[in-house]
């Protein structure tokens, strides 16, 4: 599920087309930046630069309001 930092290079600086996908409507793409529990993965794990981490966090929070992404998932019941 999660993108783990193997190279520690920001994926948005490598591929500029991905920046357009940071949008709460494209919640399936944002799923890559949350854990199975629904937490936002810190940028030092994914390697995303601070600029795009701010955008991602804001869009994930919008998607959570609309129940597109979960606030929290209890692993015992999922």
């Amino acid at each position, binding site marked *: 599920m999660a993108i783990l930092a193997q190279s520690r290079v920001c994926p948005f600086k490598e591929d500029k087309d991905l920046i357009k996908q940071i949008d709460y*409507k494209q919640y399936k793409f944002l799923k890559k930046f949350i854990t199975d529990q629904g937490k936002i993965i810190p940028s030092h794990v994914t390697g995303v630069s601070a600029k795009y981490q701010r955008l991602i966090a804001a869009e994930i929070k*919008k998607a*959570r*309001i*609309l*129940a597109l992404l*979960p*606030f929290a998932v209890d692993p015992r019941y999922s």
Partner: protein
Amino acid sequence: MNNYEIVYIIHPALQEGRLIDIKSKIHEKITSFKGKVLYDDSWGKKKLAYAIDKQKYGTYLFCQFLLEGKDVQAINTDCELNSNILRHLITRIDSSQILDEKDKKEVKKETNKKEAFKEVVKEKEEVSEVVEEEKEEVSEVVEEEKEEVDDTIDSENDNKETQEENSEEK
């Protein structure tokens, strides 16, 4: 005048007719404030990530519009007071983010592409199966050859053993 977009979730029990009523009410409200509806779409019935008002499903509707900033609050309160709208979100957007009717078609095309991709994958799988079969055949042949070689080696060994035995006997 600014560009805004609204996403609202409607109660899953409502039928198509009442759904259109709610939609047209919001559109009328926008036009009554001298606004303009730019884009309108339905995302269909979706499963919610968590239950809202004990409902696990909801119908998502999406709309982009042009409106004066001070009138947005009226639409916001309208949505809040409507008990059939489970949740709504109004966000201000850039003019470059406004979608066209073409985007709807693109979505349909994408689904077609997905189907085509699946077909391609299936074909690939078939091809790979054929290749695997060929490989199996080849490997069988190789095994047979190996067995033959093994037989010859065994026979040689046997010969050696027999010779050794013979020598021992001698």
